[in-house]
């Protein structure tokens, strides 16, 4: 992998509308209601080579629509998209397959009744790619060594999700899409998964991640983009998103009957004042820096207002 100046993913003015020109839906489409729903309403972002970028937002914000356009599943309504130097919806035939060989996809949820074993399924998928990772190495990396010969439809939900992740990385992708990859993982499985993602990043894989676990984004992402109602609310490094004001710490302590809380740029000074006032340790003292989750919730609330 050579480092190139252009980003792994470049998105400009991306829009996606559903409905209207869409083919006849499932049921109840007899009437002439041509209401269009705008899922993605003009967003811009880049993902650098070797960068982990997290796209965050509430359900229905447009995360999956965006990621599936980048994966080449859907056509966009407007805007420009470049993924590994190519526009997925302009690729055809051999060029499309060669492009697909360079990306890895972990879809949001897969419910297939898969009667193959973990190893059979991975061997099969490995054969689709020109330079696959060794199958047993991948099985080991996702922590399924004990289950390698178990049928996939007999695994637990969390174990199946690990199979999804394994299938996404077995082709040694340059760019990996992870759409809510850790849903159904227990806390220790999630930690192991974080380790795997860090190793992939260290090997130079660029990663686009969506997740509802803000601690996960904080742990893994170099930068995050927050979208709400199809628009990008903010974008930036994890420790700077939301601006300095959103990160002003809280000092919290018990006084009288209740809990007092005060935001301050100088928590140490406030704590010192409290210590002086109480003549010792202030009861139940806490100094809290807003987590990514706190910042996220503020931004989402701000976007809705």
């Amino acid at each position: 992998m050579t480092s190139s100046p252009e980003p792994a993913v470049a998105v400009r003015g991306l829009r996606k509308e559903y409905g209207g020109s869409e083919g006849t839906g499932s049921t109840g489409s007899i009437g002439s209601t041509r209401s269009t729903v705008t899922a993605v309403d003009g967003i811009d972002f880049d993902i650098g080579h070797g960068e982990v970028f997290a796209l965050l937002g509430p359900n229905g914000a447009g995360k999956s629509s965006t990621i599936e356009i980048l994966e080449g599943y859907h056509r966009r309504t407007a805007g420009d998209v470049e993924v590994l130097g190519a526009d997925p919806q302009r690729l055809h035939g051999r060029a499309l397959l060669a492009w697909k060989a360079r990306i890895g996809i972990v879809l949001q949820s897969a419910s297939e009744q898969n009667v193959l074993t973990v190893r059979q399924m991975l061997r099969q998928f490995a054969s689709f790619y020109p330079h696959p990772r060794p199958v047993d190495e991948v099985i080991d990396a996702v922590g399924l060594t004990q289950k390698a010969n178990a049928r996939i439809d007999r695994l637990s939900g969390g174990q199946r999700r690990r199979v999804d992740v394994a299938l996404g990385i077995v082709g040694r992708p340059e760019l990996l899409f992870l759409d809510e990859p850790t849903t159904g993982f227990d806390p220790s499985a999630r930690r192991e998964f974080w380790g795997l993602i860090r190793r992939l990043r260290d090997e130079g894989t660029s990663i686009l991640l969506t997740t509802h676990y803000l601690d996960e984004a904080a742990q893994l992402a170099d930068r995050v983009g927050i979208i709400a109602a199809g628009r990008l609310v903010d974008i930036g490094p994890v420790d700077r998103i939301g601006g300095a004001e959103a990160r002003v710490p809280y000092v919290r302590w018990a006084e009288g009957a209740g809990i007092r809380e005060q935001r301050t740029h100088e928590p140490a000074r406030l704590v010192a004042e409290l210590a002086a006032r109480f003549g010792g340790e202030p009861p139940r003292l806490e100094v809290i820096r807003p987590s990514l989750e706190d910042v996220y919730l503020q931004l989402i609330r701000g976007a809705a207002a």
Partner: protein
Amino acid sequence: MNTIALGAVRTRYEIVSYFRQFDALFFTFLFPIIMLGIFTAAFSATGDIGTGPGGPKVSFGAYYLPGMVAAGVLLSGVQNLAVAIAQEKSDGTLKRLGGTPLPPLSYFIGKMLSSLLTGVVQLILLLLFARTVFGIALPSDPERWLDLAWIYLLGILTCSLLGIALSAVPRSGRSATAVVIPLVLFLQFISGVYLPFAQLPTWMQNLASFFPLKWLAQGMRSVFLPDGFKTLEVGHEWNLGWVALVLAGWLVLGLVVTRLTFRWIRTDA
């Protein structure tokens, strides 16, 4: 790996999956064998079936065998593939494959080759069952077996392609069986699989002549029934030329429809 080699990889996994799915195994693989058993047992008292006074006679089971062979081709091809692909489309299997560099043609090769191979095993079991359990005489003339080979091959390729083409019709995996099975049953009733074709009203025979199953069943009758039975056919001959022509026509149609309609996922634009 190239497209053909990947097709072989897919074939292997299709076959493994096929034999691990009990419902598919039962309804497509064993169905013709079970039906032949039921028919033969139910009508065992009816006596032999013949073309008329002085003509050749065969047992009831022998008379139904060609229809069951033809039904096996239809089930392995059309029913099995149309339902399986519609389900794979709705449960995300195809979406996942569509995100990999697997060529769609390799996927089709896997589907068709696995249908062919499982179909041939099904045919062998059916013939063994007919010969050993019901004592049905099988053709001794090698030319008949050659006819069986090309009619079977052409039939299963055509039915596989039609199954792939038909998989685009059901709007969901759950509705797939509701769309496909009545169609397949209807064809079997008008095409001389369950009911003797010669006894059907002319309009029904004409309707059936537009579809491949009638010709497939006719071709199989030419293989398994004594030559004298051709007097019961339309025009009093087996008409293998038309069998080839109609099956090939549907093969091309299936190819074109598949080429035009197949998508890894239901498109939205």
